[in-house]
């Protein structure tokens, strides 16, 4: 069992994480997503084989990184338009 805590600009990432957990043959036990200062705080309690959880964590890191990247790009554009 592991707890994944992420800050998300796009709440849909929560669904993405749950789907990825299912794909990696992990079980999602708890999901908490709540607004937090313009973004969302997500907490997911997930069980699974150690290797599956390791891969899941890496995949989550990747989608969260893309989420931040795109959000920052949109903010920069909005700032000068």
């Amino acid at each position, binding site marked *: 069992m592991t707890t994944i805590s992420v800050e998300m600009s*796009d709440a849909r990432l929560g*669904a993405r994480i749950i789907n990825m957990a299912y794909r990696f043959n992990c079980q999602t036990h708890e999901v908490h997503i709540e607004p937090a200062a313009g973004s969302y705080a997500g907490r997911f309690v997930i069980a699974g084989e150690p290797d599956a959880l390791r891969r899941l964590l*890496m995949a989550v890191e*990747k989608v969260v990184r*893309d989420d931040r*990247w*795109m959000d920052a790009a949109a903010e920069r*554009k909005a700032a000068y338009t």
Partner: protein
Amino acid sequence: MTSQHTSGAQIVLDALVAEGVDVAFGYPGGTIMPVHDALFTDHRIRHVLVRHEQGAAFAAGGYARTTGKVGVCIATSGPGATNLVTGICDAMMDSVPIVAITGQVRSPLMGTDGFQEADVAAITSTITKRNIIVRDIDSIPAAIHAAFELARGPRPGPVLVDIPTDVLRTKIEAHVAPNSATNGHAASVHTNGESDLDDVSVERAVELICESKRPLVIVGGGARISNAVESYREFMRLLNAPHTATINGLGTAEPQDPSFLGMCGMHGWKAANKAVGECDLILALGMRFDDRVTGRTDRFARQAKIIHADIDASEFNKIIAVDVALHGDLDAILRELTGRLSDRMVPDFSAWRERVKELYAPLPTDRIEGNKLLATEVLDAFFELAPSNVVVTVDVGQHQMWAAQRARPTHPRHFISSSGLGAMGFGLPASIGAQMAHPEKPVVAIVGDGGLQMTMNEFATIIRHELPVKILLIDNRNLGMVRQWQQLFYEKRYSATDLYDNPDFVAVAKAYGIEAMAVDNAGDLRPAIETLLHSERPMLLHAKCFPLECVFPMIPAGAAIDEMIDGAPV
């Protein structure tokens, strides 16, 4: 400064132009009509009308893969958007920057099962880096800019922008400064960004290289993406060690480099795969240890330490445990390694190079009776006769592997393949994107009879846009790779792979206005290929090949990379 009315669709075009877009591949339909209406009078973007949206996504991929620029495809809602899906997924798997613009039903209809409504944002959520539904006209520029930035990097990939048709039709009063649409805020930015290349890791990598007796370099598609061809070649000149490539890394090495062993992996060259088994150090550069490269992972490079360089940190230890991870842009990493190695005594790997020479074995060839044409003969002759600047796109299947074994591209943007996804139907539309990007270069689509029939409606696109694409059709009247697996692993139970009722491809091509000819014997082969290559118009060469030829060497599924088979058991 003037004041005028502009529409959401026009703002989309302005935003695309601001990103440097001059060509887009698309297909019209109800909800995207405002964009095509704007294109009617705005000629800054050349719109290539395909004959199926999948062709648009593949063509955008071909454009992006051969240029490094973002490819753009445009489709309507519902079926138009869902038809893009395979091409988007292909771009995701091979890290290809494309932006897909889709129309969506009117905002009030979203979620009502409206006509041609599909939740394309949900559908593509796992095959895009991100997708966006644009809710209002003011958000369009930022959304499109963000889409391009994310598509470009750090690791490129597809982004989808879904825009309800009412947003596209909305008109606002805009204060437009001259040339503001092409102010190029980010038109040429390629953001490598995101790197935490640390000194300790680089130093450790250099130590491992200097301690090694038998290093092997494997280069992947990351070299193409980070424009690291020159730095790679300089690094290899200094290292002077054996090296190999994944299919997406082909063309990174100097074509005539005697230390280059050709492609590795499931259908790779024997010396390359054997070297993986014997080396004591692997430098994995911009590759991701795909299962088609590694074979059985628990027996992959068992004697070797692994240095893995990649822009995407999530690739480290995903498949293969690494000893040193170099996180960053590959071009920068290679320059750093070259600089540091230059300051030291680079080990002499001549004994290892000699050993690898002993591992060399020519590609096996099927022996058949009579004068039947072998696909491998066709491809041997093609790559011998093709000019060095030829851009080859391949489809998926046996011909793809035979081509990858034989091609010696001078640049990784000259050999284009749907490698990660392995999407049949890719080759022809990808050649359209490549030819649009490189009108001055010869572009040849090498396709099989199965894959061609998935997208040969794009013959019409080739003719409409007067693209001199050449098509080399390797026809063995079979879904050859599946048939090969049935022969080897399914007790010759040839279920659903016989294409005995193929159409007359020459007649089909001619019906679209494409010149075409057929060849069925070795004697006529070379003149036919020369005719194809010298044609100034689009042309198809239909090579009628022996149907039972297999691709060898081959690592059977579940075997280790150095457990190749050379032929079918008798």
